[in-house]
């Protein structure tokens, strides 16, 4: 028998280590230490009801266990074989105790569709993909369905583009299929550029065949015989695995001429991007593939009419493609039964920032931020307070506590002032300054703006400068109005998605954290203590013992004082490096 005790950060904070020790000692008292083994595990992802103790092999799942419960668990469950009912999970709806974790609603929170094979199959072995229904969807499409039928299935599934904007995929395919040309192209957008996002990379690294299969299906539907994957050169492993996968698919005759004995021909090529953020925009992406500068052009004409080399092209994101084979195999009704009314299926998110379980998750549309951050993500690091979550990267916004219970889908996120984006989710705690965060994202957009249109090129730069001024304590109330007005202008007048969304971090922080802007402007204070220019290190003369450690570590000799007497920091000389603060063993130095 085994007793698993959760050793995740959340459960450890509620004394799971003591539970572990108690269980061990009670077992020893009963001479059971050789029969029953107690093991600390990683996070069960059910931190809300932690600490968790799980009993194997019967899978009994005890929640909110206290150290003093150890005796009862051993005496009742292990010795007498009776479950401790009061510690079982109580189903909030039926008010019944659930003993087996497999029947708990919680474990339905993550469903892996796009990530179905990631971490399961060997990505460099096509056989493993085939044994998991691989290429069956393609076979079904080209041997049993007409292109129009395939498009109809995708349309009925309700799948929307996972790259960020959420355009209905079936409709996109239909438009491309109706364009008449001697050559059409299927393009996979693997130019994942949001800071902190790594979903597409993981799909390509873990399951490259699913993207290849889906691109072939798309080719069949729209009448294209060529596919191109635009992937950033910074993803060497994803490129390598894709190349291996393409090679294997060709060997098996699943790419090339006369696929599966039909007249359908399709092949793939890779195109490398140099990592420019704007090249995730489809027109800029196409220009970059053509060897031109990665700059967007006005739509229409849409790529579906005139794209790569002037030919109709259908551009979809990696994750969108990864969903396609499953939709064909399991049917559009199955897919559309998952998710919300207007956003179907699941979404992969890359959890990053001040969160315990940094990682890759896939949840049905309509899951709340609270479930993602506090249950799947295991809550905030070091037990700090949640402040905001940034979704959608530099194009998205910061959502706050009041948005935690909003079901996540395309439309709700836009209504809250952010956007789905590609699925990066950066969690911030009380130590993060929201003005600095907005400045960080503007710094990114200024750097990544292609410079073609004026609002984006000049406007973002001005936004950045104003934010920088506020961070230095020189902002005025007029600056705050100017930020808002300028943001609106940039949003309304920029040429492409980059500029149209780049003011989102500013607008959403202005809306949700106006008080922090005010603190910077009026009180010249940074509430989170992040803006260096507004900080002041001071020595508390009552706590200072005069050990001189701070004076010795100060690089600019700003600290003076006699041995064994309180020291003093000359704020006109201090460069706020924080070295003294870290060095002081007596907590005598504090930040204003």
């Amino acid at each position: 028998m085994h007793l698993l005790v959760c050793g995740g950060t959340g459960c450890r904070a509620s004394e799971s280590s003591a539970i572990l020790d108690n269980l061990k000692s009670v077992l020893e008292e009963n001479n059971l230490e050789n029969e029953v083994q107690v093991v600390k595990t990683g996070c069960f992802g059910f931190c809300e009801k932690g600490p968790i103790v799980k009993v194997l092999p019967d899978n009994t799942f005890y929640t909110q266990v206290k150290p003093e419960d150890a005796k009862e668990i051993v005496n009742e469950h292990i010795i007498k074989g009776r479950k401790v009912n009061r510690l079982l999970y109580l189903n909030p709806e039926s008010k019944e105790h659930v003993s087996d974790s497999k029947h708990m609603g919680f474990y339905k929170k993550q469903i892996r569709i796009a990530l179905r094979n990631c971490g399961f199959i060997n990505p460099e072995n096509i056989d493993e993909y085939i044994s998991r229904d691989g290429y069956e969807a393609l076979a079904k499409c080209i041997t049993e369905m007409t292109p129009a039928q395939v498009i109809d299935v995708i349309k009925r599934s309700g799948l929307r583009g996972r790259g960020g904007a959420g355009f209905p995929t079936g409709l996109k395919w239909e438009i491309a299929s109706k364009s008449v040309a001697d050559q059409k192209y299927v393009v996979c957008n693997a130019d994942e550029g949001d800071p902190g996002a790594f979903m597409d990379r993981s799909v390509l690294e873990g399951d490259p065949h699913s993207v290849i299969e889906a691109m072939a299906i798309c080719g069949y539907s729209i009448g294209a015989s060529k596919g191109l994957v635009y992937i950033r050169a910074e993803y060497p492993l994803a490129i390598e695995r894709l190349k291996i996968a393409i090679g294997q698919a060709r060997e098996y005759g699943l790419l090339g001429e006369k696929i599966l004995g039909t007249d359908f021909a399709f092949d793939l090529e890779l195109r490398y991007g140099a990592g420019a953020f704007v090249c995730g925009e489809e027109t800029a992406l196409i220009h970059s593939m053509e060897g031109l500068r990665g700059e967007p052009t006005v739509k229409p004409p849409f790529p579906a009419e005139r794209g790569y080399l002037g030919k109709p092209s259908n551009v979809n994101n990696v994750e969108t493609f990864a969903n396609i084979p499953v939709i064909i195999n399991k049917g559009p009704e199955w897919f559309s039964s998952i998710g919300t009314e207007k956003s179907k299926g699941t979404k992969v998110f890359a959890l990053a920032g001040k969160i315990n379980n940094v990682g890759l998750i896939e949840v049905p549309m309509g899951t709340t931020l609270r479930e993602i951050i506090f249950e799947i993500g295991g809550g905030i690091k070091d037990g700090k307070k949640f402040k905001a979550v940034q979704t959608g990267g530099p194009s998205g916004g910061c959502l706050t506590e009041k948005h935690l219970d909003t079901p996540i889908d395309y439309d709700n996120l836009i209504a809250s002032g952010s956007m789905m984006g590609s699925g990066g989710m950066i969690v911030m705690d009380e130590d993060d300054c929201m003005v600095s965060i907005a400045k960080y994202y503007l710094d990114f957009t200024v750097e990544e703006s292609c410079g073609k249109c004026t609002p984006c090129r000049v406007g973002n730069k001005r936004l950045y400068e104003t934010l920088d001024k506020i961070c230095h304590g020189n902002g005025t109330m007029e600056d705050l109005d100017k930020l808002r007005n300028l943001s609106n202008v940039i949003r309304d007048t920029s040429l492409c998605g980059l500029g149209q969304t780049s003011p989102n971090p500013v607008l959403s922080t202005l809306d949700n954290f106006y008080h922090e802007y005010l603190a910077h402007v009026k009180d010249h204070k940074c509430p989170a203590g992040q803006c260096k220019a507004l900080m002041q290190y001071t020595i508390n003369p009552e706590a200072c013992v005069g050990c001189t450690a701070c004076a010795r570590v100060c690089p600019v000799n700003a600290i003076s004082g006699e041995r064994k007497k309180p020291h003093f920091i000359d704020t006109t000389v201090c460069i706020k490096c924080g070295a003294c603060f870290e060095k002081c063993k007596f907590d005598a130095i504090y930040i204003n």
Partner: protein
Amino acid sequence: MVKVKSLADLKKIKSELQSKMELREKSENPEKSVQVKVAMATCGIASGAKQVMDFLIEEFEKRGIEAIVTQTGCMGYCYAEPTIEVTVPGKDPLVFGYVNIKKADEIIEKYIKNGELVEGIIPVNYETIEK
């Protein structure tokens, strides 16, 4: 390599592969044939998954344990990389996190040889589409 020429071909290959993988699991020495998957995406490799995989392959051979070590993509537990999934025949697969060489050694000696659990198990917290 034989080309796949029709849907029937594909289905045939699939069933052959599935029985092959089944065989792998129920080989003649079920108590000896262990399957290990090492998560080898960028996150895993950056945290040392390659060294762990090499170590596992070498040590299984040295210690005379019949085992199949394969690589796989990201399991999603990037906070606990490197991660490996160990399937001892007859038991459910278990995922271990923070697997360095020392941990890998512990997993071989304790879990694979004696069936004792070791610290660092990551409980599965998602559903797959097969159900």
